Structures are given as structure tokens and as C-alpha cells.
């Protein structure tokens, strides 16, 4: 199987073109216990994130002065892949991803605002279909915002690959296994800073700028989607609290939101059904 077929103007295996993201759906505030929570779907990759804190440092041994202690835990559900498999917590692979995730969010969180306290972030991959790391970063961003933790800006992650001369954005599991380099970037899209960057395979330096640009473009696109989702969520929450129109929004955005709302509502129904399923699982 090829990463990119030449017919139909160059289509990937799932019917996307090189620069197209998978469908993203997300929700904020899915749990009431935690201080902030979010659920995100990027194609078939589904991730749940919960944020606790800032709260006093639990483990008295660890002393961090002047900045907040970030504890990031990554885990995958036993049913997240095709094969059901118990996944031990704290193994090498998970720890590595946890560390990288912590690095990514640390770049965005204003750590100096809450000295001598800690923030716990838990992400659980419910279904894995490529780009787990990216979905986790995006879910954590949403959950942190939901928790009201001060951040410099969103941290958004996206992966990219290269098929021949065409860069591909947002790599699915199938594309990951088909070979080709896999570049994962967590970026602060507004300032254009890169928080984490990882490349899974040898890639000639000459190709890197193109692939990186592609991944950054993907980050910017995802940022726009997340931003809309958060604003929409805020309107909902604000409306419920009677703040309604006072919430400041540009005229244009409001119109756009109105249009999108109708579409989204149908999906929301579907989503809430899914939430129920998930919780029973």
C-alpha cells in the first residue's frame, strides 16, 4: 500500500489529501469531579483528559520553589487498540510520553503564578488510531483551559510525514505503520514557538523544513478549531449563568457560531450518547 495514490489528484488511504486534517470533535467539562476536563476525537483517536489543581503539593518530598509542579500521567485503556491488552502504568514507553507531554504543557502554563502548588493532568487514550501524543496535548490544553489555569497561549500538537515530495499532515495509525518519517510537533501557534519536536525516523535535513512547515500549519489549523470550540463552550456556560450577551464576542464570530451551532447540535446528541457509553465502560 502506498501513502499516497496518484489518482484523484493524490489521495491518502482514507480519502484525505496531503494537507487535510482528520475530523476533530471536542467537548469541555465532561467530568464534574475534576477541576477541568475535556474529551477530544481526532479521527478515530479518542482521548479523555482531566486536570486537578492548582493544589498544594501532595508529596512533601518534592519541593519546587518559585514555580508550579506539573504532574502529567499518560495511559492507554486496555481496549484502546484492536487487540485487548493490559498496559502497565509507568513502563518505559508511557513514562517517556508522559515526560514529553509535561514538557509540552510546561511551555504554555504560566508556572510562576502558582508557586508551591501542583497541577495534575491525567490523559487516557480511549481509542488509538495514530497521533496519540498530539491528541493528548490537545486534550490537555482544553482541560487546562476548562480548569481556568493561566496559560500563555494554547499548546497544540500535530504530526506530519512525507510521501515522495508531498508532506502529509495528521498521520493516522495506518500511515504510521506504512513507513515514512513521522514528525510530531507541539507548538505555541500564535507565537510560532515549538515546545516539543520528535522525529521517528531518519529524514534528510533538506526535507525537514517542508515537513515541519506542514506540521506547524496543522497546529495552526487545529488551534483554530479548538479556539472555536472553546468560545462556543464559554457561550453555553455563560448563557447558563445568565451572563449572556455581556460576554464579549466579535460580531463576526457570533454569526459564525450561530451557523455552526445547528450542525453541532446533532453531533452533540451523538456525543452525549457516547459519553454515557464511555462512562459505563
Amino acid at each position, binding site marked *: 500500500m502506498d501513502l499516497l495514490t496518484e*489518482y484523484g489528484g493524490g489521495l491518502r488511504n482514507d*480519502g*484525505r489529501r496531503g494537507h*487535510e*486534517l482528520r*475530523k476533530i470533535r471536542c467537548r469541555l467539562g465532561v467530568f464534574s469531579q475534576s477541576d477541568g476536563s475535556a474529551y477530544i476525537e481526532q479521527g478515530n483517536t479518542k482521548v479523555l483528559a482531566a486536570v486537578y489543581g492548582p493544589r498544594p503539593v501532595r508529596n512533601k518530598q518534592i519541593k519546587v520553589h518559585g514555580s508550579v509542579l506539573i504532574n502529567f500521567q499518560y495511559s492507554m485503556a486496555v481496549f484502546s487498540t484492536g487487540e485487548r491488552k493490559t498496559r502497565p502504568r509507568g513502563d518505559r514507553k508511557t513514562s517517556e510520553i508522559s515526560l514529553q507531554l509535561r514538557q509540552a504543557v510546561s511551555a504554555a502554563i504560566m508556572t510562576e503564578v502558582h508557586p508551591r502548588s501542583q497541577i495534575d493532568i491525567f490523559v487516557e487514550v480511549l481509542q488509538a488510531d495514530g497521533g496519540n501524543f498530539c491528541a493528548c496535548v490537545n486534550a490537555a490544553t482544553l482541560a487546562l483551559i476548562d480548569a481556568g489555569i493561566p496559560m500563555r497561549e494554547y499548546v497544540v500538537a500535530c504530526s506530519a510525514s512525507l510521501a515522495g515530495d508531498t508532506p502529509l499532515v495528521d498521520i493516522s495509525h495506518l500511515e504510521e505503520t506504512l*513507513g*515514512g518519517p513521522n514528525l510530531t510537533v507541539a507548538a505555541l501557534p500564535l507565537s510560532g514557538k515549538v515546545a516539543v519536536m520528535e522525529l521517528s525516523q*531518519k529524514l534528510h535535513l*533538506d526535507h525537514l523544513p517542508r515537513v515541519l512547515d506542514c506540521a506547524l500549519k496543522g497546529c495552526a489549523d487545529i488551534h483554530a478549531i479548538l479556539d472555536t470550540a472553546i468560545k462556543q463552550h464559554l457561550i453555553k456556560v455563560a448563557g447558563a449563568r445568565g451572563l449572556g450577551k455581556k460576554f464579549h464576542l466579535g460580531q463576526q464570530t457570533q454569526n459564525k457560531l450561530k451557523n455552526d451551532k445547528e450542525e453541532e447540535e446533532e453531533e452533540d446528541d451523538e456525543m452525549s450518547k457516547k459519553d454515557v457509553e464511555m462512562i459505563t465502560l
Partner: protein
Amino acid sequence: MLTSKTFLKKNKRGNVLKIVREHYLRDDLSCGSELCDECDSKEAILEKVPTSNSKQYTVPHYLLLDTNIILQQIDALEEPTLCNIVVIQTILQEVKHRSSSVYKRLKDLITNPNRKFYVFVNEHHHETYVERNPGESINDRNDRALRRVATWYEEHLSSHVRVILLTEDVRNRDLATGEGLLSCSIASYISQLTNGEPLLDKLSKIDAAVETSVKDSLYPLHATPTEIHAGIKSKTFLQGSFQASRENFLEGQVNCEGYDKPILVQGRDGLNRAIDGDTVAVRLLPEDQWSAPLELVLEDEGNMEDDEGGEEGKELMKKKSVPVAERRPTGQIVGIIKRKWRQYCGILQANPMAGSSRHLFVPAERKIPKIRVETRQIATLSTQRIVVAIDSWPRHSRYPQGHFVRALGPIGDKDTENEVLLLEHDVPHSKFSDLVLSYLPQMPWTITDEEVSRRSDLRHLDVCSVDPPGCTDIDDALHCRPLDNGNLEVGVHIADVSHFIKPGTPLDDEAALRATTVYLVDKRIDMVPGLLSGNLCSLRGNEERLAFSVIWELTEDARIVDAKFCKSVIRSRAALTYEQAQLIIDDPSQQTSIATSLRGLNRLAKILKKRRMDNGALVLASPEIRFHMDSETHEPLEVVAKKMRETNSMVEEFMLLANITVAEKIFHEFPDNAMLRRHPVPPPANFEPLQHAAKRQGFELNVSTGKDLATSLDLAVKPDNPYFNTMLRIIATRCMLQAVYFSSGMVQQSDFHHYGLAAPIYTHFTSPIRRYADIIVHRLLAACIGADATYPALLDKKASTALCYNLNYRNRQAQYAGRASVALHTHLFFRSRVQDEDGYVLYVRKNALQVLIPKYGLEGTLFLRCDSPGVSWTYNEKEQCQSCGNVVFHSFDPVTVQLSLDRSNVQHEKLVLKLVRPVIDGYSVPSVGNNTQDDDVDMVGEKNEAEAGGTEKEQGDCDQPETKKRKKKNKKNK
């Protein structure tokens, strides 16, 4: 962003594993018709008003193909008659899955702009995607998808242009007609075309009721795939590849993995329709039914209507009780796991019943059975060499069914025979397609200043090239100049082919497929288009060219101080021939910079050569000859052995040095995926014939290491027989294994050794114009020095191993083709001649002498027959000699033989050898001078016919360092 957001699931069940994949449907996919103005017109391929040659369907229409049509009728589709064809993605994937060769041919058709094939991406089109219904088979679903596309096109083009669905599947056709679509089979479509007549012959004939009829079936039923699977699992069946016997068409063997001896299969039932190369399932017979190979030659003399089983079969049935000692494991083929059919060259054997359209085809390859074909063009085709493909082999038919693919030309014509040998050796030799040629640089081509600034400018150096006369693809040039510190600077400049052939382009794919330039006696099959090989890459004299340079600093005694690599621009001062270069070196009055440069090179080369020999490099020999051709008729006039000059060896040494230096560099930088070349150490058992032969002449050969062998070969000289040493070397060459390309990550480093050259590491760098391996090495080296980018396939161990496999295969085939071409020309040469020649006995066999004739470099078998009165041969196995009366033949004895060509079999002309001296009454023939018309062809049809360049020749073949190429290049110089 996404235009259509409908989200669907696609399940794929394999190992009780559920895989869920996303599947996006789009609304921006084009229908590909010029008629339509809704869709993206950039992709429009199908004509607005397709012309219809059809009598039945007079409306303009496009054709929609089903998988079965493509798989079975690709030969017919390749004819330019049918145009404006829609192939849907579903079908394309199915074809790819079922047959990669057909897929490749289909892709060629799709890329050909004249044929107007359009690939419609139905699976991602929001209106043509169909979901598989519960309980529906995948085939039914695909058929439905096809009909859905047909319906959609009809609606989309609002019936201005109709769509005709071509399928062989009756059910699909009925369903399509039911839905109001036009549908028919390809045979009925072609038969009503006004210009369809020549296409009819090319249609493949598949019998629908293949395995059903029990009555008058000649062969046992094949086991079903599930039965075979179960059988192999339970070990009642064995899986292996079937090899037909060359001599006996009712015998063959199956080489099974995990079963050390090949399993013998005999008789029609035993062979059960297997064809050479097929992967088969075989059932071992009980031990008391085991048998031995029959020592007779059986040729299938069967005619068309002779379907009674024949007498040979019966004869085989009453098995003589074979002595237990000779018995071999015997089995019966119960099923075919995978067919390995290809297209076969051969001639037609006309049906004795005049006017019949069914004929038998006799393939040139003796291992392949005759094939039934149907054609109405027998009158023209019976005198031609033709190509035929097998379609099926039903139970009731004695021969497989096939169809005519194309004619090559009249039998016996040199061009036709060349074509045959290229086809039979699987050498891709078609013209380069327009797509490939479109990737060539635009002419007139010049080196831009930008390009120069990126490279080292070596135009000031006095570089020259030394090649055989008439060479047009000059891929190496040299220079040598003294440095201030007393050392010498030596540069080898290789044509920078990788600058023109970029990875992943069709040009690159084509070159990778061809792998090597094939040199025939009168023809060269280029690996890259002529513009590159003969002009832009070729380092011609006094022209600026791009090169990849290796530059050493060497001390006076040829030790390397430093080596560097760079992409460069050079201007060769002169393109010399070996002879010219030799003259310049030898003439002391010449004091030009080129002359001093050449002398310096020559001096260093001698030191390098000596050092290499001291390390144990072998000097091997194989009889090489060249033909002098008539410039008008291109018939061979004269045969001469080739000559070696000092300058040959000079160029050779520096090429070896460059190759080794580059090999070290790329292996150092890319330990996992460097493309290298190794020559394995032959197992000691291989040397036994050589040692025996030498021992009988009183020489002891030490074969424990390459160095020992080289020394003892040097010592084995007989003053009275100057050719003795050469013959020993010829035999030694045949003991060797083949040198192969490999990817460094796949082989232990201790196995990198090149035995023939006595080098610990080796690669090919110096001939990128004619070898693809060199292009890969160039790319690797360019990546090492930062001159070029890498790409995934270059760094992928598996991909490069697969590439190596193809390169090795093509190289081998190219060598065989080259030899076959020499054999062909030898035959042409002897067509009008009967000649006496001196030769030497190379081997003594039970019933024959293997005779080598140095003048023609050919080897033939002289059969020793005892049918004349007073002639009886005694074979002494211990002494390895044959005697008749007081005449005794040992190996290496000189003989005189008479050569003539036996043309009684048009497909297999063979050289016949007859003894002239020493004279044996009743056996030897008089010398040609007083030879009357001698029609005695009693050697015809014997086992092991004297074929010049027999099979043994093919075993030992390794790198004769670079010389081969130079010699071969000679040949094309008519």
C-alpha cells in the same frame, strides 16, 4: 479542509482482529470527462465525443471494465483499438492485489495519454461509495460498486455519452441489464467492432467449466485451496516449486523446502498440468512405488487431435522394476498453489487439417509443454516466431489453452532471434516510454553557473579517458599530477548520472527495473535513454561535463595518504582508446601533460596490481571472443579472440581502487544500508573437479585460500601445452560462486569479503551509465558528503535488499543473454561453413568428450558412439579417460574436430562436432578438404546435444574486475 464530512467505518477481519479505519467521502472528485463542466476539467481525459466503431452500440460511449476483463484480457487491452476507458479504483486495487504484473501493465496503459484511460476514484466519491451489506460477499459488493459507478456516469453525463459495462461475469451482466445499463462480454463487444478482427486472436480463452466434467478428463482433479492448506498443515502434502525436465516432457521434480532431496514426478497423472516454475502441492508415494528418472529423451510429438494419451504415457506406466539403490522419492502433484506463467516465445505447428483455426504452439523453451492456440492468421504466422500466453489448462485438454500475443518476425532472421533471446531472458528492452523520456533534461543543455558554484571546478585539470574504440558511453576519466610535497594526486572522475536521474521519477523506476545495460554481440540495450548514456553523461573529449570525482593523494609507492570525494565539473582533454593510450605511453618523444599523466598512472597501476596479486587476487579466464561483422548485412564474418593491453589493466586498477575507497566510505557512513558487492568463498567441494584434473597432469593445487589458489595456478604451467594454464583457469572460474550485490545491514561483516579480488569490502561505483547499483552508490556517497538529499527508500534496509535482489537477477539474466547472443552469432557464422578446428579435451564423460575450441571460445560435446563396426569405447572412470583401440583421450589432450551446424530443428539449431584427428577408423571423419556431402546427422536428437555454451558455463561467474565490460564494449564496434 474537508469538503465532505460523512464518516464511515470500514471493517477488515483478519486474525480475529477488528480494525476500524476512517473513510472520508469527498465531493471534489472529477469524473474525467471533457463533456462535463461541473467537475475539475484539469483531470479530464475522456474525449467529449468518443468515436464509436461499434455496429451495435452506435451512440458515443465510454467503456467500464471489470476486474476479470483486465486480468484475463490485458493483452487485448494493450492493443490501441479500445480507447476511452474508465477504470474504477475498486477494480484497480483488486487487480493490484491479484496480479502485480498485470497491474504494472495496466498502469502503463493508464499513463499513456493516447489511450485515454481514466481512473475514477469511486471509493471516496460521496455518490458512488457503496457499503457492504451484511452477508454480501466482497465480490458481490465490488460488482455492485461497479454498477453504481455505471449508473452514476449515466446520470452525471445525462446520457449524452453512454457507458458500456464490460464484464465476463454473467450474473453481473444480468443485474446490470436489469438496472437499465448497457453491458456485454468483451468477446461480443469486440466481435461487433468494425476494426475488431485482429483483436479476436488476442482474446484469452478461459473455459468456464474447468474442473467439473468428469467424463473424458485426462488429468486427475486438482485439490481445492482449502484441501491443499489442510494437507500441507497435516504434512500429507508437501509444497515446492516444480521443475520440468529438459529432456523428458513427462518427467520433472519438485524441490520442497524441508525435504533435502527433490521429489520426482512422472507421467501425466504425476505432473498433473504443472508447468515449469509453478508452486505446487505434491503427495509423496509409498516407498515401494518410488522410481528413478528415465534415461531417455522423450519429445512430445503429439498433434492436435491426438488426445488418446499417447504411447509414451503407456510405456511409462509399465515401470521396469527399478533397483532399490537408484530409487528416488517419487510423488504426485495434487494441486497448484501458484502459477508462474509468463509469455512464451516459439513457433506454430500448423494443424494438419487445413482450414482449421486451432493450432499447436511449440515453445522455444523445452521445459514448457505445447500450447493450444486459436488463430485465423495461420498463413502468415506459420513462418514467424510468435509470443503466446497461457490462459488455462482444463482437465479434458491434453495441452494448456493459450492465445496469440504478438509476432516477432520471420524464423531464422537475426533480429527475430535477438528478440527471442531478450524475451526468454526476461530483459526489458522496449523503447523508453514518453513518460520516461519527459524526465530528461531539455536540449540544448548547458551547465549553469549556479551548478558550477555548487561543485568543485576541476576544468583546469588535464583529465583524459581511456576506453575501447567506438565507445560512446564513457563513464570514467582519469588524471594524475605531481604535488609539491613529492606525492602524486590521482583523480578518478565518474559520470554524474545521479544528477540527471532523480529518485522516484519514472526515469529512475525504469532504470531500476532494467538494472543494467545489456550488451549483445550486435546490439546494446541501454539502461538509461540514449541522450544520457551517449551524450550528457558521457565524458566526451573537450566537452564540459558533470562528474563525481574521487581524488587521492598517493605516495610514490602507491600508498594512499588521503582520499576525498566531490561533485565536480571537468573537461576531458582527450577520449583515448587503449591503443592510443598505449602508444602515447610508449613513445618517449611525447612530453605533453597527458603523456606524463598517463605514465604516472601506468606506473602506479603496476604497483597496485602487484600488491593486489600478492594479497591473493585471482586471475581467472573465460574464453572471450569477438565477431567481425559485415557492415552491410550484419552477418558475422570472422571470429577473433580478444586482446589485453597494459592500458586495460591501468584503467582497471584505478577503477578497483575507486570502488574500494567508496565502499569503505559509504559503509562507514551508512553501516545499515550501504549497497556493496561481495563474492563468497566457494565451498571446498566446488574445487574437486579442478583438483582432479590438475592432479592427473601432475600438479597439486592448493585451494585452501584464494592466495594459495592463485599461487598454485601460477605454478601449473606445461611448456609443451601453452593453453594448459588457461584451461585450468577456465575450469577454476567455473568452480566460483556468483558475486552479488547486498545491503550491508543484512549480512555479517565477515561475509563482505570479495574472494576474486581479495578485497575485504567492495562495491560498484565506476559505471553508473550502465549499472543501476552504481547510481545507488552515487546517491549514498553524495549523501555522505552533503551534496544530495537522502530519501526513505535509500535508507530502508528492506527496500534496498529487494532492489539488490532485482539487480542480481537482471545481471545474471544479462550475462546469460550476452552468452546466448554469442552462441547465436556462432550459429549464424557456421550456417554456411563446415570447418576443421583445433581444440582441447576439457572433460571426459561417460559417453562423450567435452571439447573446448579456443579460437571461437566455444565448447561442444563430441559424442562417442559404438555403432560402427570395429569401434568400441572403453571408459576408465579412475583415470578419467576414454580409449578406442590404441587411441586414448585424457583431459587437456589436443584434438582436431570438424564443426558444422545442424539445422534440422528450426528452434534449436546446434553445432555438431565430429572427430578429425587423431584418426580412428570407422569413427573419425576426413578433414574438410576431401569431405563429400556428409548427411550423417546421427547425433541429432541425442541426449545432451552439443550446444555451444552449455549449461555448465553458467555456473561459475564472478567479477572479472571490469574487464568484461571493456571486452563487451568491443563487440559493438562492428
